[in-house]
C-alpha cells in the first residue's frame, strides 16, 4: 500500500516537473503560446534601486517633485520629525541618544570604509561569477572541440572506405586465383582419370588381340598332323625342284 502511495505521489509530481521543464528559456522547448512581451524572462539587475540618505527610495522624492519641488520631501521629513518630537510621540529617553550615537558611528563607518568594502565585495562577486562563466565557456569549448574531433573521425572513416574497397578487391583477386587453381586442378584430375580409362581400354584390346592371335596360331599348330606335315614337306621339295634351273 505504501508503495502504491509512493507511485501515486510520483505521478502527481510529474506534471509539475514537466511544467518546470517547459519554462526553460532555451529555444528548443519554448512553447508557442509563450508571451514574451507581457511576461519577459526575468533578468537579474546589476545595480540596485537608487536610494537617498542610505535608505529612502528615489521614487519617494520623485513622487514629491511635481507638487513640491526638490525641497518638498526633505521639508516633509523635517516637519514630520518636528511633529513627532513636539508631541513626544518620539520619546527622547536614554535609548534615543544611544540610537543617535550608533547612527553617527554607522554613518562615519560607511563614509570611511564604504567604498573600500564595496570595491572588495564587487571584486569577490566578479571572481565568483568569473569562475562560473569560465566553467560554462570551457564546457562549451570542450564540447565544440569534441564535435570537431567527431567530425574529423567521421571524415577519416570515410577515407577508410577507399581502403576497404582496395582490400575487397585484393580478396576478390585472391578468391579468383584460388578458383582458377581449383579449376585447373579439376581439369587435370579429370584428364588423368580419362587417360587411365583410355589406357585401360587400349591394354584390354591389345591383350585380347594378342591372346586371340596366340590362340589361333596354337590351335592351327596343334591341328597340323604329321601326315600333313610330311605332305607339305614333299610339296616343298617338289616346288623347289620346279624352281631350280633346268640347265644345271
Amino acid at each position: 500500500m505504501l508503495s502504491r502511495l509512493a507511485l501515486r505521489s510520483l505521478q502527481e509530481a510529474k506534471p509539475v516537473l514537466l511544467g518546470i521543464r517547459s519554462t526553460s528559456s532555451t529555444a528548443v522547448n519554448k512553447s508557442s503560446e509563450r508571451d514574451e512581451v507581457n511576461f519577459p524572462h526575468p533578468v537579474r539587475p546589476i545595480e540596485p534601486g537608487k536610494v537617498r540618505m542610505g535608505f529612502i527610495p528615489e521614487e519617494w522624492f520623485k513622487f514629491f517633485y511635481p507638487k513640491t519641488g526638490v525641497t518638498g520631501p526633505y521639508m516633509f521629513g523635517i516637519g514630520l520629525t518636528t511633529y513627532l518630537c513636539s508631541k513626544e510621540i518620539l520619546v527622547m529617553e536614554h535609548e534615543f541618544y544611544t540610537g543617535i550615537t550608533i547612527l553617527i558611528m554607522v554613518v562615519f563607518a560607511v563614509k570611511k570604509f564604504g567604498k573600500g568594502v564595496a570595491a572588495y565585495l564587487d571584486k569577490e562577486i566578479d571572481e565568483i561569477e568569473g569562475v562560473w562563466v569560465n566553467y560554462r565557456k570551457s564546457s562549451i569549448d570542450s564540447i565544440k572541440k569534441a564535435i570537431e574531433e567527431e567530425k574529423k573521425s567521421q571524415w577519416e572513416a570515410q577515407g577508410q572506405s577507399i581502403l576497404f574497397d582496395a582490400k575487397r578487391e585484393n580478396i576478390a583477386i585472391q578468391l579468383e586465383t584460388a578458383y582458377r587453381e581449383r579449376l585447373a586442378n579439376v581439369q587435370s584430375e579429370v584428364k588423368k582419370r580419362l587417360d587411365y580409362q583410355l589406357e585401360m581400354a587400349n591394354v584390354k584390346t591389345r591383350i585380347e588381340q594378342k591372346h586371340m592371335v596366340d590362340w589361333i596360331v596354337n590351335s592351327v599348330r596343334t591341328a597340323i598332323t604329321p601326315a600333313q606335315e610330311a605332305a607339305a614337306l614333299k610339296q616343298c621339295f617338289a616346288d623347289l625342284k620346279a624352281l631350280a634351273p633346268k640347265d644345271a
Partner: protein
Amino acid sequence: MGFGEYPAEYNPKVHGPFDPARFYGKPDIPFGEVKLGEVGSWLGRRSIGGLPSALSRAFWRWQHKYMLPKKTGIAPFCQLAIGAVTFFYVINYSKLKHHRNHKYHW
C-alpha cells in the same frame, strides 16, 4: 492556493519562469488611479485571503530591487534596520510612553 503551490492563474507555458514578485491574475486599476468615489468598490474587490500573497509579492519585489542585484549596497540593510527600529518602537510604545519628559504638548 495552498503553501508551496503556484497561483491558479500562473501558466508556465504562457508566463515562462515563475517570478514570485509578479501578480499573474487579471490586474485591477492601480490604487493611485482610483477615483475617490470608486475606492469603496475597489476595496470591495480585494479580499483578506489575497493579503498573504500580496505581502509575499511585495517582499520579493523588494528583494529583486534592493537585495538581489549584483552590485547591491548597504541600502537594503539600512532599510531593514530602520524598519526593525520602527516596528519595535511601535510595539513597545505603551512602555516607552512613561519616559516622556513633558506633561503638556502643544
